[in-house]
């Protein structure tokens, strides 16, 4: 169908008032809330941090300085590379991958159990039980982990009382609390896509495989996992992106010496008050994470359209 014919049909089908509402609302959303802000952010990231008086003046030209700073640090820095920021960035990505894999490992069995093994009633109760912690505020969830892992927290008190250790273990500094808290935060986002995928798998396929003498691990490897691949990818994508972009949990649970990349962005904005560099770092986070996700999807041969259902 030609776009013009489509437009005419669209208006005819919905009538003027409704067609106008749909078009205006979607344009506002897509342009004003999604696309234009991203473009402006990219534009900001390509500019110098100038005082308001000089903005729009002759010095206000496009530059790659902010990206250069991310790679090489301040001009004339003897180190050559901006080790601090690069290391934090790499650490953030690796930790996010780790959190994703951990969530996948603990959530796959639950999703499978919910979808195939549990009775309808039990599955519904378990689903409600899964949702409840999710609706408790992210900050409060992180706070709970602080209570548990703090130096004077539950685990250390227990360990000291039993006499297993004589010095409290600093879980916060070791980032154990952060990883546990992040994994905890996104459990639901991993369970539900996988559950949706496995639920549509015909039980007979599993029984047929079992009937043919396949051991349980082979049934999962050859039948269930390939079928649930879009769901698994969807869950992993969400958990990875949200973990890499998390801000509250690292601020509350992160150790004093280790930063999350979002914290660097936050500091660039609020402590250095350098918006162009903050914008550049945000662009880097967005672009690199997206590319990573696309790369993994290419590797596992999952199309974008299959994700997010």
């Amino acid at each position, binding site marked *: 169908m030609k776009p013009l014919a489509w437009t005419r049909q669209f208006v005819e089908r919905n009538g003027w008032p409704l067609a106008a509402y749909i078009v205006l609302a979607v344009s506002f959303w897509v342009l004003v809330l999604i696309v234009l802000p991203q473009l402006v952010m990219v534009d900001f990231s390509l500019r110098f941090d100038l005082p308001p008086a000089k903005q729009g003046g002759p010095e206000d030209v496009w530059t790659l300085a902010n990206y250069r700073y991310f790679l090489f640090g301040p001009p004339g820095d003897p180190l050559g590379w901006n080790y601090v920021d690069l290391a934090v960035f790499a650490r953030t990505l690796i930790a996010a991958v780790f959190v994703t894999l951990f969530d996948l490992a603990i959530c796959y069995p639950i999703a499978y159990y919910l979808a195939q093994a549990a009775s309808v009633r039990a599955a519904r109760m378990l689903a409600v039980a899964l949702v409840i912690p999710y609706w408790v505020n992210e900050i409060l969830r992180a706070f709970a982990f602080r209570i548990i892992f*703090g130096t*004077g927290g539950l685990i250390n008190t227990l360990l000291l009382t039993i006499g297993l250790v004589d010095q409290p273990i600093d879980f916060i500094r070791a980032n154990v609390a952060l990883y546990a808290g992040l994994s905890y935060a996104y459990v639901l986002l991993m369970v539900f896509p996988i559950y949706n995928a496995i639920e549509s798998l015909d039980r007979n396929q599993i029984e047929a495989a079992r009937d043919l003498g396949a051991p349980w691990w082979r049934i999962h490897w050859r039948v269930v996992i390939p079928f649930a691949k879009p769901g698994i990818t969807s869950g992993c994508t969400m958990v990875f*992106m949200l973990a890499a972009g998390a801000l509250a949990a690292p601020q509350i649970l992160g150790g004093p010496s280790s930063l999350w990349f979002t914290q660097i962005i936050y500091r660039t904005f609020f402590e250095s008050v350098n918006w162009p560099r903050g914008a550049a770092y945000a662009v880097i986070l967005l672009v690199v994470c997206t590319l990573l996700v696309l790369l993994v999807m290419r590797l596992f041969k999952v199309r974008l359209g299959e994700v997010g259902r």
Partner: protein
Amino acid sequence: MSARRRANGLTRLAVGAYLALFFTYLFGPLVIMSITAFNSSAFPRLYPWECLTFEWFAKLVGDQRLMTGLRNSLVIGAGVVVLSVLLGLAGSLLLTQIWPRARSAYYTLVTAPILMPGVVIGISTVLFWDRLAHAIGASYGSALYNGIFLTILGQSCFIASYCMLVFVARLQRFDLQLLDAALDLGATNVQAFRKILLPFLKPAIFSAAVIAFLASFENYNTSVFTISHYNTFTIEVAQKVRLGIDPSISALAVIVIVLTLFAALAREAWMRRAEQRRAEGPVPGGIVGAVAGNPAAVLATFLLVAVAGVAVFAARHDPSTCKAAALEERLERQRRLEEEARQRRPAEVAPATPAAPTGQVQNPGRGMFGDIFTAPGSPPASPAPPPAPETRNPGQDAFGDIFTAPGARPPPQQP
């Protein structure tokens, strides 16, 4: 056969153990946090248990900044609900009839905000509206610089996507011929939409509104950039948590968890009742009829009664005697430890008894002090000096522990 049965039993055991572990991971932190809300210990802890107290709830309600944040959050939540539901609905309606070739690109575009890091959305929103305000020469007092306005827009960017997905799921079960039927019977397009599609979408509108409100209320990553000099409830809580942890946050968690639990149970009860009605015709009316044979309703009612009971008990409960005893015991232990330490290392200076200045030196910039001195709801000063840090716990939390304790008395140095 019996071997197989045994294997089956083992599998069940393993599955049961796994489920138990998983849900312990899920609920353990929430349960522990909730219990700490009732311990008078100034550091939120289960053990050692000092005294049963409800003072943390009082402190929470008395916190002016939190209450202002709550008000802002409600305003923002209302704005986000309206905007996101409108945008998400339009987005889903367009998806059902968009030009086929543009469909997948459009879908990717409008669901992408869900995956975008919240900080990126927050930053881009601030930058875009800042640039726009510059371009049209808006003054700083105008809406374009208003933190609440910007937060509503920034949050709606991705919350509208959630809403859209809710609508899309519902629309997949809609028979488009119903609209044709309405038109054929003489309805205008608007009438068909209002009388046929909208009633069908009503449950989805309700779910979308609830999801939008909750997502808005708990959002931190985006709001922290867009809010400027205002603060939302969640941002206030985050700041409190970052500055020092204190059981009034646990008390807040108890309130949130009870509300969530109650909402989940009420919803479950309502759904089961609807199912029963569909299956068996009219259900006996009245409260007894509504609750009978509906475990979720029983639990919800029980929860209500329990909360009411606790509230009554809390009003009468006075933990001051117990607290004085606990304090005494702590001081006693403190002295003993100091004694031991002195005997072991006589040369060394004993840990300072009024520990506050030490703490300040050791932890600059942790904001501990600001917190104690401004801590609202502190009980009136008592003659007892503040307990010194326990030497076994030299970490930050040990300091945070005393210094943020509202139960702790202001140090004598305070003017």
